[in-house]
């Protein structure tokens, strides 16, 4: 029974943001299904994906909200930043304009999440090196200047996709460990599961009152 669907200790909320067509939905799909969607329609509003991963021996469930990059959904998608523990900002290495918009995405991410939110920059479509429009060094410099983690990845080949999602979780987990992330704040985007060995704990009156998993998803 220990391999059941609820066998995890934390839930982390992620958001994926960035211009339209940079491959946000493809990255999510690659991460959750390990497949590449060659002709992925534009996202309408937001989409949702989930996967359980392991960090330092702890099972963690990622709840990932993939937002629409189209400008017209900006008002809607902004409401989904709230309470994200991780934010993945994506640009397309073959389209400079998507890189140029990063600062606006970053501003949104900073303004609408909390100070502990781990922001990860991903240059997607690294498989299309021949059409590259943004150099690695330039993006790396931008990331360093803004204190972001950075990798180039490809939703097509899967390169670095896993790493980016896991690395983000690892950083969040570190914040929990060193106490800088307050688990009781719904804004933190992290929930601790009641307990794994729990018929007893769960049936006690106080645990029943506030089942954290139901509150900030």
């Amino acid at each position, binding site marked *: 029974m220990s391999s059941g669907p*609820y066998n995890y200790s934390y839930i982390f909320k992620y958001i994926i943001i960035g211009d339209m067509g940079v491959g946000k939905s493809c990255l999510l799909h690659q991460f959750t299904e390990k497949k590449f969607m060659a002709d992925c329609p534009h996202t309408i509003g937001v989409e949702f994906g989930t996967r359980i991963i392991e960090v330092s021996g702890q099972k963690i469930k990622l709840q990932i909200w993939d937002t629409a990059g189209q400008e017209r959904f900006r*008002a809607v998608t*902004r409401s989904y930043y709230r309470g994200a523990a991780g934010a993945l900002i994506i640009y397309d290495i073959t389209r400079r304009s998507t890189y140029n918009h990063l600062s606006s995405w970053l501003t949104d991410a900073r303004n609408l999440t909390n100070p502990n939110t781990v922001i990860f920059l991903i240059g997607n479509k690294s498989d299309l090196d021949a059409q590259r429009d943004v150099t690695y060094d330039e993006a790396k410099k931008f990331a360093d200047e803004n204190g972001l983690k950075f990798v180039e990845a490809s939703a097509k080949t899967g390169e670095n996709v896993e790493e980016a999602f896991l690395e983000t979780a690892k950083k969040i987990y570190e914040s929990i460990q060193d106490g800088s992330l307050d688990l009781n704040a719904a804004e933190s985007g992290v929930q601790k599961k009641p307990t794994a060995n729990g*018929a007893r704990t769960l049936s006690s009156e106080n645990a029943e009152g506030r089942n954290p998993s139901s509150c900030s*998803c």
Partner: protein
Amino acid sequence: MSLEPDLQTAVNGISNLRITTDQKLLDGLSQLSNCASKEDLHLSPISRKKRRPDLKTLIENQQILYYKQFLGSITEIRDGVEHLHSNLSDLNEICESMSTNLRASKQSSRNLIDEISKLESERKKLMVEKNLAQAYLNAFQLSGEDLKILRTTDSSTAILNEDFFKVFERIQQIQTNVAILLKVGHQATAVEIMDQMGLLHETALEKIYRWAQSRVKHVENPELSDVLAKSLSYLQIRPMLLKYVLDEYCTHRRSLFVRSYIDALTGAGNIKGIELIGGADPARYIGDMLAFIHQSIPNEKENLTILLKHCNKIDLNDKIVTCMSTIMDGVCRPLNVRLEQTILSGLDCPVMNKIDMCIKFYVETIEQILPVSNLLATLTELYSLCHQTFINQLRCQVQAEVGEYRPPGPDLTPSPIIQALLSLLGDLLKDTLPSSPEQAEILIQLVTSPVVSQINDVANRLGSPDMGVYLCNCLNQINIFLEIYPITKTISNTLKSQIDSQMDRLSSEQSSWLIAQLGISHMYTILNDKVETPLSTVPGMDSASLKIFVNKLDSVINDPESVLLPQIYHLSDTGTRKYVQQQSFRILAAIYRKVYEAVINPKNGYPSEILKMDPKTLEDSLCSDTTEVDTKDT
């Protein structure tokens, strides 16, 4: 001397002595030597003589003794033999009796064997019967162990275990078996078992139900989720029980959800609440609330999916959606109160527009997830409230602005109210157009048509060229604004055709003005009159008049603007102005061509070289810069 012969004999004897080897003799001698004892050897010869017969007696006695001994021995032997005989007889008797016994026991063994084989066959029969009985029991009865498990399990049991479910399955199996039994014809037994099992089945179901109901809220507990799922799958045969459990679950989740929603709104402890944003940014406030609700859905769905994963006899998807609806419906009231309050709080049109679109987005989103839910109904209602309010408000605002509309001054510039309304429209379209072109069209209509009709009203009160210029100015301003938006073709086309007709009117007025300015209206009449006499003799067409005409033409070419109708200067759009001018010049050029043709016709008797310019050159010089302007404008 008497001794002599004896001694003689003895010596002779000794001298004749030979070592005899006859064994018999040796034995006899040694026998004899025993007869004489040692004392005998020491006897004096007299006594020895005296004793000589004694030896014989002795030997005879010895012999008799031997015989006696022999007789004794023989007697003993005889006794022994007799004893043996009697023993043997006894033995014989025993043997005989044994033989009889044996014969008897042989018989009885045979009997036993018979018996054993009989028993064996009996045993076999019994075994078969026992197996039958066991099979019967297995098929139709619970074991004591089963009953015990059933008895000791209740809703306080921490976890319903595998064994319990096995017992439950056994009961169900027995019930199926009984059905067969009934068909085969064992009515009485079958009915009895059926009653019995029916009772047990109900008991077991009841126990599952009670247990599930008390634990169902803990579906997220990894140890319970599987057992709960299993329990619910067993409850499928009693839809009501399943429903009660799910009701219990939904009620619980529903109140949790409402509470978490309120927490998210107000913030608890150090949590920043959504409501903090409310005052500053009502659209975001509403967006955040709806996003919060939307984001709660996957979790509820996952829980329900896990809870119902073993249920194969119901429409799973339908059930999950129904339950989710029940859970989510909890927030309808608090959500409704807040949204309604915000919507009716007299917000600006652009904010209302944002809220309108936001609610619309969630109506569409929720429609796909929970097509039959109070949440959707509430949102739909709120949407229509919001939309109505917004449209009314917009209508009122436009009406109010239009009410302030004042007629133009002598410069015929458009009222600033047009600009104000257009920038309001621009604000609205910025948000609306990308997501809802239809709505954008409606908004454009709502804002522009009252203004356009007001413009027309005002224009109609103006004099002729003023009206055209004013209409062109105002409508152009609107049209230039609308041209940015790709969807406004119909409205824009209507405006354009109105502008075109005004431009045509202005053109003809300008042409009349031009012709009047040049004083050539009579020339035109004469040329059209098909006069027979040479034209050079007709007054007004004589060479002197033509010279004046040529001079005026030269001044027009030098300064085309000088012959514009004064109002045309107020046309704000240079393109329109040029167009009007060009139209009038075209007419001028056409008249010139007619004059020219008449002049070069020898029948009219004009001196040569009176018109130096050929019509083409004139047309080019008048209209060329116009085309330049045209290309610049477009």
